[in-house]
């Protein structure tokens, strides 16, 4: 199992979890506040499990906390989509929907990975991920097919975030290597399924799929947008300012 493959998965979970956690206390309704922080905790939990496995395989004495708090932006391998700012609620929902639709397909495939640990982890996580997808698609439909204002906000969010969807299903060297070993799925095979699923959902939400075909990439290789640096500055502040602090 490639450590970078695990980091791609773990970093996606950690960064998206952190973004969702930023809504804590700020969501439009108490019930949504709880829902978003539940998602955040699911993702943070998944990230922890993955980082623990990385630490074991790496055998260098690094811990899950070191991986989360002591790496700099270029060492993070999350896709660009998950580090994008929360924006308004529409942006958060569209970002979540673009991610969940992919994540479900990915974990579904990982359930039949040739790696035993991966099968156990994916089989446990897929139940959480199924709920995430249910939550975000439901809101996508409600707001897309809601009022004139909600429709406009959702379309604007979709137009802004669309260019980050492609990276999820574009295999890099690590993805290709893991696919060849039977550890991970073939992203080239997932891509058409993913976009078919998205187009169907977008149409059902009475929104329009952006016609842009060019997709932004780089996150998986550690080339990030400026947003990640700001996110890490906040997330890692305590360990950077007071190294080794525990409470």
């Amino acid at each position, binding site marked *: 199992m490639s450590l970078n493959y695990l980091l791609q998965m773990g970093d996606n979970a950690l960064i998206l979890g952190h973004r969702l956690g930023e809504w804590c206390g700020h969501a*439009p*309704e*108490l*019930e949504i506040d*709880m*829902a978003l922080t*539940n998602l955040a905790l699911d993702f943070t939990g998944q990230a922890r499990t993955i980082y623990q496995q990385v630490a074991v395989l790496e055998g260098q004495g690094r811990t899950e906390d070191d991986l989360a708090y002591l790496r700099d932006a270029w060492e993070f391998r999350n896709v660009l989509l998950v580090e994008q700012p929360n924006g308004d609620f529409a942006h958060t929902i569209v970002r979540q929907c673009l991610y969940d639709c992919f994540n479900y397909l990915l974990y579904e495939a990982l359930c039949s990975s040739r790696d035993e640990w991966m099968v156990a982890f994916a089989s446990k996580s897929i139940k959480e991920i199924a709920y995430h997808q*249910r*939550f975000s698609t*439901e809101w996508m439909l*409600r707001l897309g097919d809601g009022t004139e204002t909600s429709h406009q906000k959702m379309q604007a969010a979709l137009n802004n975030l669309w260019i980050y969807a492609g990276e999820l299903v574009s295999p890099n060297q690590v993805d290709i290597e893991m696919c060849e070993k039977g550890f991970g799925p073939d992203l080239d095979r997932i891509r058409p399924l993913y976009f078919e699923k998205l187009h169907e959902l977008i149409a059902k939400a009475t929104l329009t799929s952006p016609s842009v075909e060019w997709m932004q990439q780089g996150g998986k290789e550690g080339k990030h947008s400026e947003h990640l640096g700001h996110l890490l500055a906040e997330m890692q502040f305590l360990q950077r300012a007071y190294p080794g602090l525990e409470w």
Partner: protein
Amino acid sequence: MKNNWPLWEVFIRSKNGLSHKHVGSLHAADSAMALENARDVYTRRNEGVSIWVVESNQIVASDPDDTDSFFEPARDKVYRHPTFYNVPDNVKHM
């Protein structure tokens, strides 16, 4: 937005075999959202295996002013409890 979302009452069955118990209320736009909100607000610590939601305005409640006529008369009728009666020794399976 808050003014538009009706109030819902939430009932949770903690495990199979037990009955649903009222646990609280929440706001939601419709029944599907109420169910999901209930899942997120009331079952995050493994409290349940089944959820019922019902719009609060669908519940018909007794009037506190009726307490005397509704409940008072039952207070002195202990003979309505089975334990009021002596069961003869030779009656089995009670």
